[in-house]
């Protein structure tokens, strides 16, 4: 029986629970699970403090207001809280940088890792916004709705990810 204090659950149980989260998303919010458009809502809100003209861009305006946008921002904030809670309960709280990076990059330098993480984050969200979805929106939700565009986007995501991961050292 899986317990809240377990360090890991079966990937199949975890996956099934992620699928069940579509129920409140569809029935109460009228949308599917997603994560990447919240980055537009938050960054455009911050940018509007110094550049109010950003609200003239339709794409920004579409992401600034409305219950669905702020629902997704709250969702990703909740993800951080939930992960904190889970790792606290199981005693798997992490510190610093994951040991896999020393293997993948061949260096312990935090500076190099931070620069790469920033670049990775930039590409990740630029790509997700170009494709109009990420591993959640296109992956979990798009494929579960049999959306043909989502199958193409996820195939391209794995292709790009596999290619770049092979440039790094073997982990």
């Amino acid at each position, binding site marked *: 029986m899986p317990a809240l204090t377990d360090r890991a*659950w*079966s*990937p199949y149980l*975890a*996956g099934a*629970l992620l*699928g*069940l*989260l579509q129920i*409140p998303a*569809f029935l*109460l919010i*009228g949308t599917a699970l997603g994560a990447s458009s919240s*980055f537009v809502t*938050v*960054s455009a809100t911050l940018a509007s403090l110094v550049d109010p003209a950003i609200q003239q*861009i339709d794409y920004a305006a579409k992401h600034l207001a409305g*219950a669905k946008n702020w*629902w997704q921002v709250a969702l*990703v904030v*909740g993800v*951080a*809280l*939930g*992960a904190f*809670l889970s*790792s606290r309960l199981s005693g798997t709280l992490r510190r*610093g*940088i*994951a*040991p896999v*990076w020393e293997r993948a990059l061949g260096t312990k330098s935090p500076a190099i890792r931070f620069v*790469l*993480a920033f670049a*990775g984050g*930039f*590409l*990740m*969200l*630029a790509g997700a*916004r*170009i494709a*109009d979805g990420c*591993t*959640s929106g*296109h992956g*979990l939700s*798009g494929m579960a*709705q049999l*959306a*043909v565009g989502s199958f*193409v*986007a*996820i195939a*391209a995501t794995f292709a*790009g990810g*596999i290619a*770049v*991961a092979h440039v790094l050292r073997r*982990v």
Partner: protein
Amino acid sequence: MSILSAVLLGLAMGVVFGFVLEKSRVFEPAVILGQLQLRNFLMLKIFLSGVAAGLVVIGVLVATGLAGLHPKPALWTADIVGGLILGAGIALAGACPGTTLAQIGAGYRDAWFTLAGGLLGALTFTYLEPTLRPVLLEGGAGKLTLDKVLGVPFPWAAFGFAALLVIGLVALERWRPWQEEIGTNTDGLLPPPETAASAAPAEAASRA
């Protein structure tokens, strides 16, 4: 729904989402990088289980008329170019947009830089969107879904595809049991490739 109730519901759903992501270990950079280097298949197991469960759930919601679909339109250029860049970013970040927040919650320091880079990436796209839009909207097929391509009702196509995924997952589990991919520190880190490669012949030699 008011913004306040949407935010409260989002927070509650997010806590469950993040809790499950942490328990599944798919937020671990070693799990994501291991998957992309085709060494650890934990990520695929979680991802495809999530899709299969979603197919069943959404199939039931559609069959009972409780909800309709919200598929994203198929836009070939945007899906392929965006997907490739997204994948490159995932490999360098060792995270995807959602799991970045789970990494922050679990305590990884570098995830804050992934988040900052992500916000700047999303903002850069926002400023460029009016210029990029004509290119991105080229060559689309609209909100095309597989059930329409096959000419069968959505729930049947969804249940059928879910069944195929379950068969695939059973095969994957037989090939690579998940407990062997979790790693000693539940971070998905497997023994280094060199030792794993050199240990196998040594083991074979000792058996002989």
